[in-house]
């Protein structure tokens, strides 16, 4: 695997506020890499330094083998950028924006087709200022993809979109990846990062506190799985012997089994079979990135 983005010891302050503090990571070719963290964590600052839109105070960045700080044309032709808070000329029409962007790059895809894919075809003659927030967002995604980039930056790509539009965009992102492109995105939606990202980096207060695949992070920080079991005559003792069990107790007639390890759930099932327990209900609860985040930071990402 080759690294498409290499960031080492990135630092950026605004006055006395350190927005990004000693952040290092790499993004590999063909993956979807997500930067997750709460509001003000430093996601946008990090991403815009990588895009070359902001200038870091310290550290080094390589994008497709080049320094993005120099505004290299070769680099700009190969990347696509969607900024979190962008604007266009108020009175520019949708098709004019796409047409303008098409002129800016040497190699482009069919703009009209792109608008269609993003559900903007019937808005092609609408002025930018008359688009809804979600439509603006989709237009910016179209502009980010117009030059058929090898590397796409998406900063909070589904903010302001309704659930259906969000799903459409997610499918588009997965299709970008299928075509062998690399995606670097930021989000504070855990569902989004679980659906899309191959690897995530957790950032808080400007520091990168964790990095890995969702499974790795869950195994590292929240390895417990919980099984809820309802049965005719259930007793906690039967299960206390199975490997990895951390807790077995009955609450309101339901047996709660907490255990660690990938094999825990199957051990529970084997135990049920062995003791011929007549199960009336069986549920498992897997921890997700949300739980990892809570564990790492002591608060939910939404606070």
């Amino acid at each position, binding site marked *: 695997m080759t690294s498409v983005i290499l960031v080492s010891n990135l630092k950026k302050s605004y006055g006395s506020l350190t927005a990004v503090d000693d952040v290092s990571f790499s993004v590999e070719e063909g993956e979807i890499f997500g930067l997750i963290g709460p509001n003000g964590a430093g996601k946008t600052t990090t991403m815009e330094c990588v895009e070359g839109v902001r200038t870091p105070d310290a550290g080094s960045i390589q994008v497709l083998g080049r320094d993005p700080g120099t505004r290299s044309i070769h680099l700009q032709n190969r990347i696509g950028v969607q*900024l979190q808070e962008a*604007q*266009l000329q108020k009175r520019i029409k949708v098709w004019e924006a796409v*047409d303008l962007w098409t002129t800016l790059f040497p190699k482009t895809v069919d703009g009209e087709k792109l608008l269609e894919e993003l559900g903007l075809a019937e808005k092609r003659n609408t*002025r930018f200022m008359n688009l809804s927030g979600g439509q603006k967002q989709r237009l910016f995604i179209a502009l980010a993809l117009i030059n058929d980039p090898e590397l796409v930056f998406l900063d909070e790509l589904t903010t302001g979109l309704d659930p259906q539009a969000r799903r459409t965009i997610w499918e588009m992102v997965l299709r970008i990846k299928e075509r062998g492109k690399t995606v670097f995105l930021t989000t504070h939606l855990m569902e989004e990062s679980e659906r899309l990202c191959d690897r995530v980096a957790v950032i808080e207060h400007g520091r990168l506190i964790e990095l890995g695949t969702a499974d790795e992070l869950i195994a590292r920080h929240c390895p417990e799985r919980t099984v809820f079991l309802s049965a005719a005559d259930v007793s906690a003792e039967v299960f206390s012997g199975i490997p990895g069990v951390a807790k077995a107790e009955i609450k309101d007639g339901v047996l709660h089994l907490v255990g660690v390890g990938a094999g825990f759930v199957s051990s529970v099932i084997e135990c049920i079979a062995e003791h011929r327990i007549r199960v009336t209900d069986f549920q498992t609860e897997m921890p997700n990135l949300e739980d990892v985040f809570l564990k790492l930071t002591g608060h939910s990402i939404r606070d």
Partner: protein
Amino acid sequence: MRHVSHLTKLTWVEIKIFLREPMGAIGTVLIPVILFIVLARFFRGETRAPRFVSVDLPIFVVIFIVIGAVLSLTTIIAIYRESGILKRLKATPLSPLVILSTHVVVKLALTSVTLALMAVAGRRFYAGSPPPAPLSFFLGVILVSVSLLSMGFILASVVRTARFAQPIGSILLYSLVSISGLFFPVRDLPQGWQVVALASPITHGVDLLRGLWTGDGWASHWIAVLVLLANLAICSAISKRVFRWE
């Protein structure tokens, strides 16, 4: 070549956007022409038109249109910067000089329309007043406009918000106009101000346009031409370095 196609496309888009602006065409084309006609009418009764009307009024108009263009360039760029449009453009292969030039070209196109209308309107009021070499005068207008607009480049590159762009630009440019020799000769100024006036490209712009209007050749105003060209080169180079995207 890339820059040329960017410039052409962006200019065309910006002209369309400008014409969609309420008051866009009216404010920049119609109002100066009307003002010109009113002023011309005011002086018409005189048997021998004073020098100000016959020669300096057109130059006065040109200079004010150009300064209007500089100020509006500064304001537009400041608005684009404040609202994040420039930031979005930064992530594309567009050069800052292309962005600035686009607005210059848009303004020049409108200035040409304004001037053409004035020439048509003026014919009725000034007997035999058109310059002996109109093409030469027109080229002079282009040179002066581009050179003065490049000062606007620097202003537009660094002024942070639209709110400051207009007053800072106005104070600077109108002071330079007042000592440019348009209203009274430069040699009547105090010694120190004469130095400032002679360093100002506006003074040289007035000198060149006045000469061309009365039929002088370009060679007899070579200093003015040189100053205007140097001003253009220096200002463009500086603004490219100090251009702020956000």
